[in-house]
């Protein structure tokens, strides 16, 4: 990635973030640098508390770093003028782990998607419903009125996450940040949602940054991977290399646990 003449969509340079806790502070991120290049699927793996979700919030501009800079298309997020900030919010979208929490329980599917179109001023009122149907079709959901009228609790977990993806696609983003996108879903529907992401990426060419603790999933989904441990980037490179021949102890630990859990065999071996 990163050949001459291209620039990253999102980049972090020397980013640090410290949270106050009772009796001290926690260093959530420490001197983290990364770039998300057009068209790539970048995986960010690490244990709970390694800083993965903090990194996602910084890249989305939901939080500011204490040190370092986060840039969108080369411009620092904190210094974007109103018009550029709007453009960035359209260009970088997010999908979170638990669609139950990220979808308004009182809004129908149709309203959720139409509102995303309205917020970004992407479709005139009269064509919003038609455009919503197209977006739902893109994520493999039916577009008939009965489905548009459903509330989130009337959907399966997989359907809810597809609605969250459709909402994120409304603004035709350049980049999608996905924080544990399938870990709240049933095992038998995870594959469908992951394949949807892969196919959307291939069709639209948008970049994806996928945060997950399951390295086997990341190994299959991502082109490049970055390993976080205790707030620092400890390893980075092509997924095929990092997640088969790790060079650091943090990566090796993640990989060993994932292999052990996946093997499903008994006893002391493994």
């Amino acid at each position: 990635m990163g050949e001459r003449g291209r620039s990253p969509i999102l980049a972090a340079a020397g980013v640090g973030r410290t949270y106050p806790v009772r009796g001290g502070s926690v260093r959530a991120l420490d001197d983290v640098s990364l770039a998300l290049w057009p068209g790539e699927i970048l995986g960010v793996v690490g244990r709970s508390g390694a800083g993965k979700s903090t990194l996602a919030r910084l890249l989305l501009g939901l939080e500011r770093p204490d040190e370092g800079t986060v840039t969108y298309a080369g411009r620092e997020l904190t210094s974007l003028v109103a018009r550029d900030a709007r453009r960035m919010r359209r260009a970088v979208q997010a999908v979170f782990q638990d669609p139950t929490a990220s979808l308004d329980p009182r809004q129908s599917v149709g309203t959720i998607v139409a509102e995303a179109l309205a917020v970004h001023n992407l479709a005139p009122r009269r064509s919003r419903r038609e455009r919503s149907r197209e977006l739902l079709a893109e994520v493999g959901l039916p577009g008939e009125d009965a489905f548009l009228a459903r509330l989130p609790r009337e959907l399966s977990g997989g359907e809810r996450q597809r609605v969250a993806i459709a909402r994120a696609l409304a603004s035709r983003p350049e980049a999608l940040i996905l924080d544990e996108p399938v870990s709240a879903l049933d095992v038998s529907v995870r594959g469908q949602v992951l394949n949807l992401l892969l196919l959307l990426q291939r069709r639209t060419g948008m970049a994806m940054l996928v945060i997950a603790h399951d390295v086997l999933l990341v190994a299959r989904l991502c082109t490049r991977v970055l390993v976080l441990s205790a707030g620092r980037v400890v390893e980075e490179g092509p997924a095929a290399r990092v997640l088969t021949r790790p060079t650091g102890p943090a990566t090796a630990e993640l990989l060993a646990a994932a292999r052990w859990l996946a093997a499903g065999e008994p006893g002391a071996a493994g």
Partner: protein
Amino acid sequence: MPPIVEVEDLAVAFPKPGAGMRIVLDGVTLAVEDGEAMGLVGESGCGKSLTALATVRLLPQTARVVRGSVRLGGEDVLGAEEKRLCELRGGVVGFVFQEPSRALNPVRSVGSQVTEAARLHLGVRGGDAAALASRLLAEVGLDEPDRVAHAYPHQLSGGERQRVLLASALAAGPRVLIADEPTSALDTVSQQRLVELIRRLRESRGLTLLFVSHDLALVGRLVERVTVLYAGETVEVAGRDALFADPRHPYTQALLQARLESGDAPGLFPTVPGAVPRAGEWGAGCRFAPRCPHAWERCRRARPALAPAGDGRTVRCFLASDEEEPGG
């Protein structure tokens, strides 16, 4: 000797808003022999958590048992007196629930919560309780057990909280440990450590284990036998090795095929078509038929019974059972 935990053809319903009942369990059968480790596997809405709760009659207030029986060590649970149930809960069966943050009281110290069952069932008090708390917290692998005993739940990590719950489940020395998705909120490294800890505790204490999870591979690390639930009913019961080597129910086959393995090439993920049906919204035939690659007309018309399939296995599938259809 009867199985220590025995659920037979259990059906449970909840009142629907308005009128009528929604059946959420309809044909759950589970038998855990004394001393064995059993996995109870299934996805959301299959009824695995309700089944676990039913073993000690901890079903939600509005739930109604429509059919079936639940026994602990041969003793009827559904008709038991409240006083006897209290003895069974914690005293005979220890429980670990999925979300440690919800199962622990945020304003009570860890130590007092860990020993609650021992105070209730064994009358342990004062300094004895404090010593017991320390001993239990050390047993579940927490460094500095005295510090942890004086801490509050929010001061601990997710993995530590889950160990605290395990310690409190063991406080009164139960024979059976029921753990409901204890690892699903943890990262993979903590998952592996907790599974290894439960395995050690089971050996050192000679526990009977019922381990409830959506993750078949993880369950395989812990148990000797597996009961697979789908859509409110038991679909397959088999020894772990037999189940992994030769799954008979198409749903079990699909779950195993959907597993990710190390060394998988990048690319599309294995999938199971369709979605898990919502509780109670099941057709007349086999509940997996809409997603099953082998389903034929009969599967959509009639519901297969849970039937023996050789080698002590039972399967709810027309393709797998030994029995012929009555009348051909």
